[in-house]
Each structure stands twice: as structure tokens, then as C-alpha cells.
């Protein structure tokens, strides 16, 4: 009898196997030589050997958290702050609410940087543009990491790794519906073998966002990923996809003192209610070539385009004697952007003492917007960077990481970001760490090249149109610098199932970029943030997991008196994950932040989320039914005091087949 076992060999998809011959059970299986598959360079670095603090959120935690996007999940990471920009744009950042775009953290999806060159290098859409069900794990590097990840890794790095397509064969359908307009559908199909696999994920998500603000959102995304293994030493990966995020912004007209001739009581509609749209299409590829058990080479290339639409007409109305006077201005920040990058990296482990990773990247970004840049031509910037990290083990318990990145930016010149980190294993389960780094953030095209004017036109009165400048970037903006000194401890107490992670830090920001009175982006001394944070991840029983994270922060002002308000004095999250009999499980997660300021100073916020789920199998299908309530404790303010996140419950049915 001959049977076909698919996917046995790298060169053929189907190897015919004679079950009566070579496949007979014998001692040969015991004495067969096998190739080294998980060589040291292919294994993930243990957390106690990383040159910095790392928190990992795995797929199980993601599923059981009830979170609806990556930014929400990051509240589980000590020191992370979260808000929703105008309600519909979830943003997460580390330690300080320096901006509402998440521009000072770097987000990667499968190794590719997910910032938006159009607006200040923001990452909020990068975090939205991935389907949670596809994520294998999220590695969060707490603290600056420009030396390894380039100039956007200013406060921290969020490394999102999606599942290998070989692990998502079959289909998956997930349907959620609930209060506050929550609707979310995800459909995924995948197939192939271990030589070639493919996956397509489509997702739609709607919700009404926060209370007291027009922020309804509709998010549609389509992602395709292919993994190929043309030979045992080569892995190829291709990604292709698009994301469309349509979201409300603006506020209803309100009474004001209209400012045309003197101050007149009237009505202002400064940010009209509208629906904006952000579209992104991307393609990227990644090739890893293994040159042996201790050496590998990777090459990757990335291309993406974005189109942003935000057009409205602002107005002020007032009665001037018998006349109804209206002043109007077109608000248009619509435009397009594109960026490309190519990167190569070589990793070699020379012996048990030395390992080196080095490489380079070329990157180009281009924006086009008549309204924002004041001319129909596109503006562009390009960067070339070289990076290297040397890992040295001078003794059995010592590990030294020394690295740096040199970047050449065509507008601002050279940048250099070095880092030194020393890890010492007190025992195999207890490690202390100390180090220092200098990180850079290069200004984006908006900060360098914007020329954004508003033309105000009048009716009901004879007045010439007035051109009012809004942004006048002179191109003198220089890089921001962050100097970090840190200590850390990572411990495992196996007897009781407890993991401890501690980080103490002083982060001094130099040359912070802000918009000046002259409407330019200028550097000025930035704040100094100091404090400590820790996480206890405890599994007292096989079915119980408790995670306590807390950060104590202080911000000393640099140039602006309210900088001290950008950092809450304390943030904390407590998560309880519990498996129950009969395939039930529940989780309870609470987040707290003491008062701090995004666009407005928020009072202490508390959010309690709960989720109950039942898992089952039915004729080979896996079924999960979950009920999630976010904001069980009522509600709290996000972004500004009047924007309220209030209780919402939604149900999710997920079937894997």
C-alpha cells in the first residue's frame, strides 16, 4: 500500500511513502542523525539576557484580556500610558504623554516599522492596522532603544509578531457585537504545508467610541501573508495588505466671541463635525538565510502608501447690527505619503563569548499635500543608517551588550545613538542589569517642511480675505535626544511560580520639539523623567495567573511649566486570569492612572474590565463564546475631561475550523 504524506521534503510537496518498506517501526528511528534545527542564533534570547527591560504579551493573554486593539493591551505593560486621540485613535506611549500620536515609541509588525510619515511619525494607526487574532505575541521593550532600532525607538519599542502562516491553516470566524455600536467581524483562511503557507485575514470593526464626542469609527483591513521555505536554510516571507480607518472628529458649534471686528457674541464652528479617512496599502518581504548553526543573514524590503482625508469648513457667525456676518476658512490637511526601506542584517556567533549583529538600512519617505506643504510638489527625506551590537560574555555570569547606530539624514545631518548594558546573573534565576543609552528622534517632514495657511473669507460684510498662517516650518528643527540611565532586576521564584521584573530609570530629554509662537517647530530643553516600575507575574496555581504592574513616575519640567503634568505620578494594572471547570474561564483587569494631562488634565482614571468565556470542541471545530464588559466600574475621562469612556458590554463568538 502506498500512501502520500504531504510536505515531507523541501524539494517536493508530496513524498510517496511505502508503508510496508522503509517506514516499518525499527530501531533506525533511534539512531537516525537529525540536522540541528534550533541553533543558538535561531532561539529567542532569554529575557534575562536582553539588553534592556522586556515585557511579553502572548496570544493567550491577548485573547483573554478582552482588549480590542494593541494600544489597549499595552496598559498591561508597566509604565505605559493609554488614550484615544479624539476618541477614535487609540494611542499608547511610555512614561510621558509627550504627544497624542504615539510618535515617540516605535511599533513593528513582523519586523517592519509602522509609523506614519504624514503626521509626525505617529504610530496609532500602525497599532490599529493589525488584527489581534493574528498576533502570536507582542514584545515590548521598555526604554530607549535607538541603538538597535533606529531613531524612532525613543521611549520604547512595541514589537508585534504575527502567527506563522503554518500555524493558521484552516479557517476562523469571529463575530462580536455589543453596546456603544461595537461590531467586529474577523474572517481568516489559511492553508499550505510546511514548505509554503498562506493566510488571508479580513476584519471590520465599528464602534461609537467615547461619550460627548463625535468619534464613531469604522476600521476595515485585509492582510495577506505568505511563508516559504524553498530550502532548509532559507525562509521567505511576504506581506501585502490594506487598512482603511474612517473616524469622526470635531465638535458641534458653540457660542463664542467671534473675532472679526472687535469681539462679537456669536457662534463658532472651529472644528466641524466630519468623518476623516486614513487609508494605507503596504507590501513587504523578508528573507532569512541561515549560513550555519551560528550565522544568519536577513534582507528585507518595504513599501507603503497612505492617503489621509480631512477636509472641512470652519466658520464663525455673529450679528453685526442688522447684518449676519459669516467668516469661513477651509480646513484641509488631506494628502498622501509613501515610504520605502531596505534593510540587511548579518548575525554571527563566533564562539560562546562573542556574538555580533550588524547591518544597515536605507529609508525614504515622501509626503504630498498642497494644503499642508504650501505647494503641489512632494517633499521627501531619506536616511541611511548603520547599526551594530556586540554581545560579549566575559564570564559565565556576565553579559555585556555594546551597540550603536549611526544615521545620516539628508536634512538634519548625522545622528549617533550608542548603548551599553551589562547583565549579571546572581544565580541562574536572578539577574541584575545596569546600563546607559542615548537615543535620538529625527524630526518628521511636517516638523521640517510644513507651510500651512488658512484663508478666511467673509460674507455679510465687505472685508478682504485674510491669510492666517498655521504652520511655518523653517527646517531648522533638529533631532530630539533622550539620555537614559537605568538599572533592572529580573527574578524567578520557581517554587511559587513568581516572575519579577523591576526597572529604575532617569530619562533626560534634550532638545524637545514643540510648536513655537512663531508657528515653527523648535528645539528647547525637555523634561526629565525619573522613577521605577515593576511587574509581579504570579501563577500560584496551574489555572490561576495574577499580574500586578505598577510605575511610580516624576517629571521635572524642561522649558514648559505644565510638562510636569504630562506624567502621572502612578499607574497600575492588576490582571487576574482564571480557568474554571467545564471549560469556562474569566479575567478581571483593572487599570489606574493618577491625574495627568493629554490635551486636558484628567482626574484619576480607573477602568475595570471583565471577561467570561466558554471554550469547546465540536466535531473538530473549536468554539469560543465570550462576554466582555469594559468599564465595569462606570466610566472615566480619556484625552480630555469631557471625553468619557463608559461601560460597554459585547459578546464574541469565535469558531476555528
Amino acid at each position, binding site marked *: 500500500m502506498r500512501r502520500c504524506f*504531504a510536505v*515531507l521534503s523541501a524539494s517536493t510537496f508530496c513524498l510517496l511513502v511505502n508503508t510496508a518498506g522503509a517506514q516499518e517501526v*525499527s530501531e533506525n528511528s533511534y539512531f537516525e542523525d537529525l540536522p540541528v*534545527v534550533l541553533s543558538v542564533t535561531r532561539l529567542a*534570547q532569554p529575557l534575562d539576557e536582553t539588553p534592556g527591560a522586556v515585557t511579553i504579551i502572548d496570544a493567550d493573554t491577548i485573547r483573554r484580556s478582552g482588549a480590542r486593539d494593541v494600544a489597549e493591551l499595552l496598559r498591561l505593560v508597566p509604565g505605559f500610558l493609554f488614550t484615544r486621540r479624539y476618541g477614535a485613535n487609540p494611542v499608547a506611549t511610555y512614561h510621558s504623554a509627550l504627544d497624542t500620536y504615539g510618535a515617540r515609541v516605535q511599533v513593528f509588525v513582523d519586523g517592519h516599522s509602522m509609523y506614519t510619515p504624514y503626521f509626525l511619525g505617529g504610530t496609532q494607526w500602525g497599532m490599529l492596522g493589525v488584527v489581534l487574532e493574528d498576533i502570536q505575541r507582542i514584545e515590548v521593550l521598555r526604554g530607549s532603544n535607538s541603538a538597535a532600532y533606529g531613531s524612532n525607538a525613543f521611549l520604547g519599542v512595541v514589537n508585534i509578531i504575527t502567527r506563522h502562516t503554518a500555524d493558521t491553516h484552516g479557517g476562523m470566524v469571529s463575530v462580536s457585537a455589543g453596546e456603544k455600536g461595537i461590531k467586529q467581524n474577523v474572517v481568516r483562511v489559511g492553508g499550505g504545508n510546511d514548505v509554503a503557507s498562506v493566510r488571508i485575514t479580513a476584519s471590520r470593526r465599528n464602534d461609537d467610541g467615547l461619550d460627548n464626542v463625535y468619534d464613531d469609527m469604522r476600521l476595515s483591513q485585509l492582510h495577506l501573508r505568505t511563508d516559504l521555505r524553498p530550502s532548509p536554510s532559507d525562509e521567505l516571507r511576504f506581506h501585502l495588505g490594506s487598512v482603511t480607518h474612517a473616524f469622526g472628529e470635531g465638535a458641534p458649534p458653540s457660542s463664542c466671541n467671534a473675532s472679526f471686528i472687535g469681539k462679537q457674541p456669536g457662534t463658532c464652528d472651529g472644528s466641524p463635525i466630519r468623518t476623516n479617512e486614513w487609508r494605507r496599502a503596504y507590501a513587504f518581504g523578508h528573507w532569512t538565510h541561515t549560513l550555519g548553526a551560528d550565522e544568519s543573514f536577513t534582507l528585507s524590503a518595504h513599501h507603503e502608501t497612505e492617503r489621509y482625508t480631512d477636509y472641512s469648513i470652519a466658520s464663525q457667525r455673529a450679528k453685526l447690527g442688522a447684518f449676519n456676518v459669516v467668516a469661513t476658512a477651509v480646513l484641509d490637511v488631506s494628502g498622501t505619503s509613501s515610504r520605502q526601506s531596505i534593510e540587511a542584517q548579518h548575525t554571527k556567533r563566533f564562539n560562546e563569548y562573542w556574538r555580533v549583529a550588524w547591518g544597515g538600512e536605507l529609508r525614504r519617505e515622501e509626503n504630498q499635500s498642497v494644503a499642508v506643504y504650501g505647494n503641489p510638489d512632494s517633499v521627501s527625506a531619506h536616511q541611511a543608517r548603520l547599526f551594530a551590537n556586540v554581545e560579549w560574555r566575559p564570564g559565565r555570569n556576565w553579559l555585556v551588550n555594546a551597540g550603536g547606530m549611526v544615521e545620516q539624514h539628508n536634512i538634519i545631518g548625522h545622528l549617533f545613538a550608542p548603548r551599553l548594558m551589562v547583565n549579571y546573573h546572581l544565580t541562574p534565576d536572578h539577574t541584575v542589569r545596569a546600563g546607559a543609552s542615548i537615543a535620538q528622534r529625527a524630526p518628521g517632514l511636517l516638523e521640517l517642511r510644513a507651510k500651512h495657511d488658512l484663508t478666511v473669507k467673509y460674507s455679510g460684510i465687505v472685508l478682504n480675505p485674510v491669510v492666517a498662517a498655521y504652520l511655518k516650518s523653517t527646517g531648522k528643527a533638529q533631532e530630539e535626544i533622550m539620555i537614559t540611565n537605568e538599572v533592572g532586576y529580573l527574578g524567578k521564584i520557581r517554587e511559587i511560580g513568581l516572575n519579577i521584573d523591576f526597572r529604575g530609570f532617569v530619562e533626560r530629554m534634550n532638545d524637545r520639539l514643540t510648536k513655537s509662537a512663531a508657528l515653527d517647530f523648535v528645539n528647547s530643553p525637555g523634561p526629565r523623567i525619573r522613577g521605577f516600575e515593576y511587574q509581579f507575574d504570579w501563577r500560584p496555581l496551574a489555572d490561576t495567573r495574577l499580574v500586578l504592574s505598577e510605575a511610580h513616575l516624576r517629571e521635572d519640567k524642561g522649558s514648559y511649566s505644565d510638562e510636569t503634568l504630562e506624567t502621572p505620578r502612578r499607574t497600575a494594572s492588576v490582571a487576574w486570569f482564571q480557568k474554571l471547570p467545564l471549560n469556562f474561564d474569566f479575567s478581571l483587569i483593572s487599570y489606574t492612572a493618577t491625574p495627568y494631562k493629554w490635551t486636558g488634565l484628567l482626574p484619576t482614571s480607573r477602568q475595570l474590565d471583565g471577561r467570561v468565556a466558554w471554550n469547546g470542541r465540536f466535531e473538530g471545530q473549536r468554539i469560543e463564546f465570550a462576554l466582555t464588559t469594559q468599564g465595569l466600574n462606570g466610566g472615566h475621562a480619556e484625552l480630555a475631561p469631557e471625553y468619557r469612556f463608559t461601560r460597554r458590554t459585547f459578546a464574541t463568538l469565535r469558531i476555528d475550523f
Partner: protein
Amino acid sequence: MTYGFAWANGPLKIWVALSEEGGAHAEAASALRAEVEKGQSRPIEWVIAPWREFRAGVPEPGWVVAVGSAAQRGMQEMFAADPTPPPLLTVLVPRLGFERIAEQRRLRAGTLSAVYLDQPPARQLALIRLALPQAKVVATVYAAESRALIAALEGAAQAQGMKLQHAEVGAAGVFPALQSVLSDAQALLAVPDPAVFNGQNVPAILTAAYRQQIPLIGFSPAYTKAGALLSLYSTPAQSGAQAGVLLRLSLSAKSLPPPQWPQDFAISINASVARSMGLALDEAALAAQLKQRSHP
């Protein structure tokens, strides 16, 4: 004419038929010989050779040892027509392979026995319990050939308070079966089924399991080297020595006891994989604990 057990006079003649020359088979044979000769005053005439080189004829040997499955088959066939064949002890054979070709008649008569190469299921699962105390579900995949292994593994898992999640590899290949069991599992147990766990499949199986941070438990040092978290096995010398003891004790009893599981075993750990998975394991300590469990 058959001499049967008539060895009272003259040297004792023992054939050791090897499936393959050299390597593990020769190592087992020399360990066996050393063990039999311990405290044995009677001269022994050893014939140690690949099984194909043996020819039926007179005088027949007093005892036959087959090292490996091919040798077992060869030696059984050689004496198939013989109503009183010399006792045959096989070593370095997996239980399934042995049982598949063992002559029932000879098993009952005590003229056929074995020291299995595979580890008893209880020991395998006890090791997983010791090394991965948090593990609740152990996964495995197998082909139709090895179906018989599963019930015993399931029972052993239950005895350790764990569940065995298993899937048979069908026409669709190893991958779908593997995916169907990995999702809930905390460990993947390799079984010596050559249709599933072979040199061509193991790289894909190992990487798939590692992506989900599921350690593979192997059954030979090669698995540990390839990237299994740990492997549990008996070395050829351990198997040969156990067979030697068994044979020495049987010489006077003139018949063989029922087949045995291996007594001695070794554990090898891949330290890099263990570290990467955040596990602290020690080969010697684990082996000592497991031995204690095996012989309370």
C-alpha cells in the same frame, strides 16, 4: 538433527546477529558479551556478525541474540522450521517492531524474549511531569503503524494527572495533525514512528512547536542536539548490558523470561533551548528523581 539445549559438554556457543555492522549495534553486542562473561566460568564461543552472514546448519548455537529488528526477523526465519529452536533474545528493538514479527508460539514457550529499546510510557510521562510541572496536556502525532502505542501513553498520562492530546497522521500529511494537537498542549512527545518522526519531518515539527513555545521531548540524543528540550533513552551499552544480565541468568534456567522494558536510561537536555524557554533543568538531578520514581 537438532542439539537443542544439549550444551552440557563443550563450550557454550552464542550467536550475536547484528542488524548492522558497527555503531550502536556493535556497542550493544560488546556490552552484552562483557556482561554475560562476568562470573561465567564456562567457556563461551561467541560468533558476533551481521545477521546475513549466519548460515543454518549443525551444530546449532546454544543461544541466539538478535541486535535490531532486521536481525530478529532474520534469526526467526532461520529457525522457523525448527521444532526446538535455540532461544532467541532480541535487544535494540522497539516494542512495536518486536511484537509485530515475534512468533507467538516461541514467546509462550519462553524461547523468545526482548529487552525493548523504547522507554516505558509511565517513565516518559513521569519525566514530563518532573521537567514541566505546569504541563497539563501532552501532545503527540503518529501514523497508523504506531496506533498501538497510544492507549498506553494515554493511561500513563492520566496516571500523572495529565491528558494526552493525539492525532493520527492521515493522507493530508503531518502538518494538519500536528496543528490540531499543539494548540492546547504544553509539551510534544516524539514517538519512534518512522512515518512521522524522521529526519525530513523533524525540522518542520521542531520549528512549529518552538514557535508556540512548546518543548519537544525526544527519544534519542540526536533529538536533543536538533533542538528538543530533552530526550529520554537507553544507550546501546545500557540495553546490551541489561540483555547480558538477562542472558546470563537464563543460561541455567534454560528459558527466557518475558520481554522487558529497559531499566537503565539517560536524559540529555538542550541547555540553550531550556534557557530560551525560561526553564532551569539539570540532567543529573532529573535522572536521579526519575530513577527514584521508577524504584520507590
